[in-house]
């Protein structure tokens, strides 16, 4: 049974991250995903300290606030004339530092350790069950991720054209009256939600992997946005299964193996994608050259 829950959790993480990741990659904001995944940490710790429990919704809310706050700060410094990657670096390290300090000062009270935050504990998802009136409803993480996925699909599904236009041509979006800033922060909110619900299972840095690597792989495979989202989720789920298989075989970190699997799939797409792959482009060039010479 634990296999099933781990795979389901991993697939849900892949779906949540895969969808929002596409927009991060297209808007050249991949490293903002990295920043958010680190800087939600003080939010989570504060939620822990306030409630004294792993109350998922409160945690989600706190992370949401910190995620949006992070992007707000980054945007503010950027407008103030700091290069965008430098402002990302300054903001997320500062917030992460606050998070680590809070953990080390209050770690004993909250049963929260750095390892869990960095590596996740997907192997234990099926231990942390959600019970209603003594009846087990399955792992908490699955419910949390399911809820997040529902929100992401609903928001992006309903407002697809706005997200698309804001990513492709924000100037036109603003000119026809779409509130571009609102959609920016809405997307960041979704990224924060995806991050915090995946956090417990795969850890901070591997969330980044699931946000960016499958979406980048999909970007190399298709020229349609809708298809890119589908492929991104599919690649993420495939990485989950491959990674889990590898981790059982090698007796190694599950989350680590999942990201490595995503990396392998990326390399395959990078080399062999029919349209944008390195090898196929080389072959095309060669056949063109041959045609020209012959």
């Amino acid at each position: 049974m634990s296999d099933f829950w781990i795979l389901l959790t991993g697939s849900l993480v892949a779906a949540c991250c895969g969808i929002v990741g596409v927009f991060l990659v297209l808007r050249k904001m991949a490293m903002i995903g990295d920043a958010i995944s680190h800087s939600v940490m003080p939010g989570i710790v504060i939620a822990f300290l306030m409630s004294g429990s792993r109350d998922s919704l409160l945690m989600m809310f706190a992370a949401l606030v910190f995620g949006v706050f992070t992007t707000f700060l980054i945007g503010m410094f950027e407008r103030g004339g700091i290069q965008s990657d430098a402002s990302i670096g300054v903001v997320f390290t500062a917030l992460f530092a606050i998070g680590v300090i809070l953990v080390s000062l209050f770690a004993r009270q909250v049963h929260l350790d750095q390892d869990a935050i960095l590596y996740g504990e997907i192997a234990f998802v099926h231990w942390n069950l959600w019970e209603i009136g003594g009846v087990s409803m399955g792992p908490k993480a699955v419910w949390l991720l399911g809820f997040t996925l529902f929100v992401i699909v609903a928001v992006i599904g309903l407002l697809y054209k706005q997200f698309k236009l804001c990513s492709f041509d924000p100037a036109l979006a603003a000119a026809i009256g779409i509130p571009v800033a609102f959609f920016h922060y809405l997307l960041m909110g979704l990224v924060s939600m995806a991050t915090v619900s995946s956090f417990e299972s795969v850890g901070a840095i591997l969330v980044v992997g699931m946000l960016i690597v499958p979406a980048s792989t999909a970007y190399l495979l298709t020229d349609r946005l809708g298809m890119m989202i589908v492929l991104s989720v599919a690649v993420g789920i495939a990485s989950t299964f491959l990674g889990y298989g590898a981790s059982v075989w090698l007796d190694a970190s599950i989350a680590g193996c999942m990201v490595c699997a995503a990396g392998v799939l990326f390399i395959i797409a990078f080399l062999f994608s029919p349209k944008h792959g390195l090898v196929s482009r080389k072959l095309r060039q060669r056949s063109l050259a041959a045609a020209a010479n012959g």
Partner: protein
Amino acid sequence: MLNFMAMLADPNMQWIFFGCLLLGLSSGVIGSFSYLRKQSLVGDTLAHAALPGICIAFMLTGVKSIGIFLIGAGIAGVIATFGIGYITRHSRLKQDAALGIVLSVFFGLGIVLLTFIQHGDYGNQSGLDKFLFGQAAAMVGSDVVTMSVICLSLVTICTLFFKQFKLISFDPGFAKGIGYPVALLEQLLMLLIVVAVVVGIQAVGVVLIAALLITPAVSARYWTNRLGVMVALSGLFGALSGALGTWVSSSVTNLPTGPVTVLAATLFFFVSVLFGPQRGLIAKRLVRLRVKKSFLLEKELRAEPMKGETAL
């Protein structure tokens, strides 16, 4: 102040204190160049990418020492840099995605190797975790000596090659034109970043070492328009942050050095953002207000004649 003196009285702490100070100095100096080359997050990526290198070095030798880790991390760093460049050159992915991919996949690989180490038969692996999250107080004398020597040589190299680094940061095309080996110099700079990252990891941790490369440099940029001054200031901010970080964390139990150092650097950053003489928030606000005021005044004075003129 009292425990500051007490800290300095302890010979081991003395070393650690000066080690962190030198670390802040050298990463501040190097960070200025990577900031100007718009590569601030490369340091972050290299820090994460160093993990598999460190793990492999440890697995091969079974020894926990900076020198050996440096070699492993250096090799991993070179591969990572190559990977980032290769992805951006040969696909339509942009730099940010390439950084993210390399960062997360290398780190994922590192974590897999780390579990191997934990499950395997590697004797004194327990310290490796500490090593990755940064705990300056856990460093032993020889580590600190190595760290200090390396940091000093980093600063020396930057001083020697100041002119070259300045030019490749500002105008690599021109540098190539006057016959500088630009590719080589860029590699050298990258190597310096890798070295700074690896020596810093033990004191500050993987995630936060990026801050020592970025934050002091950004802060320094607020105070001056001259590169030389900026590099010196950045080094100074870094050194002060390192010193403050060690001092505060050594006086409170359970407080790790890395985050405190980073927060100290962030404090300098906020001060710079607010009070920087030209670029600072306050200075800018004042200028803007003045422009708006003088402009509105001028407009009032000329409003009528202007209308007549434009209605041609």
